[in-house]
């Protein structure tokens, strides 16, 4: 059924973690979201990210004692791009920061999306399911899968046009039959939730190798259930409030069939069938 590796933790500890000064080179609105580009400065090590890993961004605000965890949308050379939504004081301040502001990047953190080995990747077919800004950690994954000749179909969903995350970017990346869109208000693509087009896709052809899902937790739970019903293995990237980001403080645990797991260090990527969605509700970010 699944050619995707079962071992989510395969990338743990395989590369060094660093704390690097980072200067803002762009910080602009993108529809309902914002894009932040930073240029990484010199450090003892190089920041090498695998798709699905995240960073902790230090905002340099003395009254905000914690770093902020962010998925990485793009990492090219010394430049890192994250996408964010203004949801609280930290992201509000981040939005108002200008070019040249010095930040601090700590990473790479967490595990990564399991990707089929190069020897068996070619010709495999996978689904990517993105809800809102959950598309961000799927972008580098999509690129990596395409580079391995995996056939990718993305269903990009959001509440409306402005919240379709990086729609044009994904249009450029994927062939036209590789991208479907659903919006709650019907402003683009199919009207309604992501499960509509997902059901269509699975009815037409349930023989995908696996699905990668990222978005709001109810959306991930619903997609994972559909995939599970079709016997399709799926992976989800979880979100929790984090303090340390490295597995020490136990702030970000989520309930799984393996017990409480640290989203920052045991995740953020989990096999969807292991997440106990109902029990997870109480510790959700929003």
């Amino acid at each position, binding site marked *: 059924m699944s050619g995707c590796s079962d071992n989510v933790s395969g990338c743990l500890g395989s590369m060094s973690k660093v704390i690097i000064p980072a200067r803002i080179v762009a910080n602009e609105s993108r529809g309902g979201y914002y894009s932040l580009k930073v240029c990484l400065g010199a450090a003892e090590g190089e920041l090498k990210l695998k798709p699905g890993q995240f960073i902790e961004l*230090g905002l340099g605000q003395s009254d905000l004692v914690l770093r902020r965890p962010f998925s990485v949308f793009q990492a090219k050379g010394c430049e890192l791009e994250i996408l964010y939504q203004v949801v609280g004081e930290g992201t509000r301040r981040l939005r108002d920061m200008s070019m040249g502001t010095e930040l601090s990047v700590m990473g790479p953190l967490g595990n990564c999306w399991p990707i089929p080995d190069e020897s068996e990747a070619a010709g495999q077919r996978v689904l990517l399911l993105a809800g809102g800004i959950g598309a961000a950690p799927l972008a580098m994954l999509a690129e990596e899968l395409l580079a391995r000749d995996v056939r990718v179909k993305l269903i990009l969903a959001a509440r409306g046009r402005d919240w379709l995350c990086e729609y044009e970017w994904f249009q450029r990346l994927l062939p036209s039959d590789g991208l479907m869109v659903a919006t709650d208000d019907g402003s683009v693509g199919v009207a309604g939730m992501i499960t509509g087009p997902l059901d269509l896709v699975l009815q037409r052809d349930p023989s995908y190798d696996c699905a990668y899902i990222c978005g709001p937790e109810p959306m991930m739970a619903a997609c994972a259930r559909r995939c599970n019903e079709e016997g399709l293995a799926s992976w989800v990237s979880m979100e929790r*409030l984090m*303090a340390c980001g490295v597995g020490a403080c136990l702030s970000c645990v989520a309930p799984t069939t393996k017990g409480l797991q640290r989203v920052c260090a045991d995740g953020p990527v989990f096999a969807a069938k292991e997440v106990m969605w109902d029990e997870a509700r109480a510790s959700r970010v929003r």
Partner: protein
Amino acid sequence: MRREPVGCDSSVNMAVTVGNLRMQNPLTVASGTFAAGREYADFVAIAGLGALTTKGVSAKPWTGNPGKRMYETASGLLNSIGLQNPGVEVFCADSLPWLAEHAPGLPVVVNVVGHSAREYVDVIERLEDEAGVSAYELNISCPNLDAGGMAFGTSAEAAAAMTAAARAATKRPLLVKLSPNVTDITELARAVEAAGADGLSLINTLLGLAIDVSTRRFVFERRVAGLSGPAVKPVALRMVWEVARAVDVPVIGMGGVSCGEDVVEFLLAGASAVAFGTANFANPRVFVEALAWIEDYCRAQDVRDVNELVGAVREVRETSGYAKG
């Protein structure tokens, strides 16, 4: 008299002793903020600490608290982790061997937690023959438990009884971590000193509360949670100063310590060693940077031994003249 110029070779003695616990420098970490070191080893050479204080270890595995566990506040952090830990057996099987291999010689202070006096003693008895343990820190001050934790640390009688029970179970240095959620912390300090504590750690977190106005619900399932971070530093410093004057045993100061300057403040207030807590989250290298700052400070102040700073705060009216008239 002409002072010697400050030079690179003017070495400062940084070693301190807390009870019988010898530390190469006065810096440690606050329990629960550094796990047992492993998670931070990717970022910093943990062997550079004066001592490593572990997250709370219980006799049996604890799952911690349900619901949200962390909430940032102005210059601070509320937590309701609830001492989730895999228990003393896993600690002995995993954490101690890892520390022995990766940080040999680093003193390890094991923070001990329990729901009852028996459970605290069970942990100590299990650890007593483990070579990798240097000292115990009795956690009678965690505010995130329904039984145990702070319940033992807010009554002088209960705190003393707990300390005496632990004292009888070990020959190793025994520290007791005090709660700030009391009317007079010196009363607790004197009680546990009399019961045999070799040193005191303070403060644990301050009891706090947060409400989500959009849902009108408490943020935390236990409603109350523990406040840490720079917001609590002046309170912690005041309590360290009060306790250091009230007891003869050494004090490890903690509470919002974020830089070398904060460390020196706590030393001057009477702490013999100082712990970084919440600050580790934003900067795992904070203790290394602080150590360099403190050494520079000592040189600039003509201090040859960091122990000279302990309790060396000057009285308000020590110098007069300019203030008059």
